[in-house]
């Protein structure tokens, strides 16, 4: 028995080391790829984001969670600033569009965070500094790892959003429903814009207040889990 232990003992130890090393490596990989689905290039059916995120860069984002949390509040008590109602309108429209619950929470750890206020109030909060001409801002934290999806012959970067924070500027008489729905579209995954003026995701702060089919189809394909 002692001879057997001496003969095979070192081999068993080496085996244990290799198995443990592999286990450590694989656990690091799963942390590394948190939130990223492993799959082959997925084909998209629509592409209405014809003003791309950046010249030649096509991006579609999404949250990879069964429920998206939203924290939203005003930084002032100004009753004529219709931010709260506009943001609730935006939440409901997008929740229906992507068919994923967007739940309002009070925690600042929410996946989507929006604040409404004057330029001075929002600048004091310290995420971004803005001049008098800025109407809204959305900052998106993304996982570094991306997948490549395909629309026609174009490669689309599929980014996983880990968190977003945005500002809606109190500008007196602005169309806040349009601004809030538009900005939340970015938070959910619309990284560029539509060139059609009727779409909420056109880069204009003009009249549309209701999502068009184009707005919905573009984003919902990122959340359409049955296609995976």
């Amino acid at each position, binding site marked *: 028995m002692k001879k057997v232990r001496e003969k095979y003992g070192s081999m068993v130890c080496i085996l244990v080391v290799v198995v443990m090393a592999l286990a450590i490596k694989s656990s690091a990989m799963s942390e590394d790829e948190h939130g990223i689905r492993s799959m082959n290039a997925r084909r998209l059916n629509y592409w209405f984001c014809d003003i791309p995120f950046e010249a030649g860069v096509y991006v579609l984002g999404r949250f990879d969670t069964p429920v998206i949390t939203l924290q939203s509040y005003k930084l002032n008590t100004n009753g004529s600033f219709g931010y709260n109602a506009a943001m609730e309108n935006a939440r409901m429209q997008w929740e229906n569009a992507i068919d994923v619950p967007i739940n309002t929470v009070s925690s600042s750890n929410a996946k989507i965070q929006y604040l409404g206020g004057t330029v001075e109030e929002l*600048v004091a909060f310290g995420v971004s500094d803005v001049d008098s001409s800025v109407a809204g801002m959305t900052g998106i934290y993304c996982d570094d790892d991306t997948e490549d999806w395909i629309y026609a012959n174009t490669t689309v970067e599929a980014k996983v959003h880990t968190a977003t924070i945005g500002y809606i500027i109190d500008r007196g008489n602005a169309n806040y429903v349009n601004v809030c729905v538009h900005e939340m579209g970015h938070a959910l995954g619309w990284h560029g814009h539509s060139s059609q003026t009727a779409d909420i995701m056109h880069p204009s702060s003009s009249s549309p207040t209701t999502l068009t089919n184009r707005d919905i189809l573009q984003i919902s394909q990122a959340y359409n889990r049955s296609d995976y």
Partner: protein
Amino acid sequence: MKKRYLIYIMIILCLALSGCSNEIEVIEETNQMIVLFHRQEYSFEELIDHSNVALVGEYVDMIEQENYCEYKFVVKELLYGQVSEPEIYVFENKGIEYNPETEYSRVLGINQYSKGKEYILIMEKKESILYDHDRYMIAGELYLCEEDQEYKLFSEKVSVPEGKTIREHILTLADPSKRQNANKSTVTYANFTERIVNEAQYIGMIKIVDLEMEGKVHNGNTYRCIAESMIKGKNMNTFEDGTFLLTLLKDTVEVGKSYLIGFTPASGSTSLIYIQATVDSVMEASTENVNLISEQVKK
């Protein structure tokens, strides 16, 4: 045999430890922020109308920070407004900016200036105790270079009337009141308590409940706070739960502790976010400080 086992254990430990450190690096790398801005596109006239400073500056250098960049200029000639230093810093966010109506977008934080060249800058000047220096912002993509005879706003040519220079054109469009260059009156105080009491709209014993946001574009952190007692100012605005937001210079307070703080609303009377009033208006919650401030308030 025992030595061999010890070597194996050491190898396992090394592997495990190197696995842990790699993981930390991955987490740190995976949080890049993409920022999208929506700007109401100003015409050249509107840009001048919203500005409070215009000058000719020689471009010196670009200072890049994590979330923004600053372009340093030496002031050569002031066209209107006030500057307090011979060098100014023009702030620009990092991110992507979209301009409504024109379907025009640009990547922010990319230098368009050449060292040693002079540019005309039309800017909005901001002052705050939260900034390292006065902050100047340009409300649009502006490129006015007399040396190159190139005058553009959002890549569109700025037309200058015949017989006029670009400087004359700017001064014609600017409200005459902007050209007065009146010197800002500076108030001097006998001591720090007088300064705090005069500059702060509210002074009170404030408990720091939580860190709400670590400042990314200035030297402040925003905390959720509760007012325990007030020495100056009444009926301040709070959220429904009685808390309010207060932006204080970094590294001045600890969450869970109370301080005697002088502060003012970030903008109008309806603000729920406040800023410390002076660089020294966050004080230890001592009886001595309370007495000093209370006596000054009574004067």
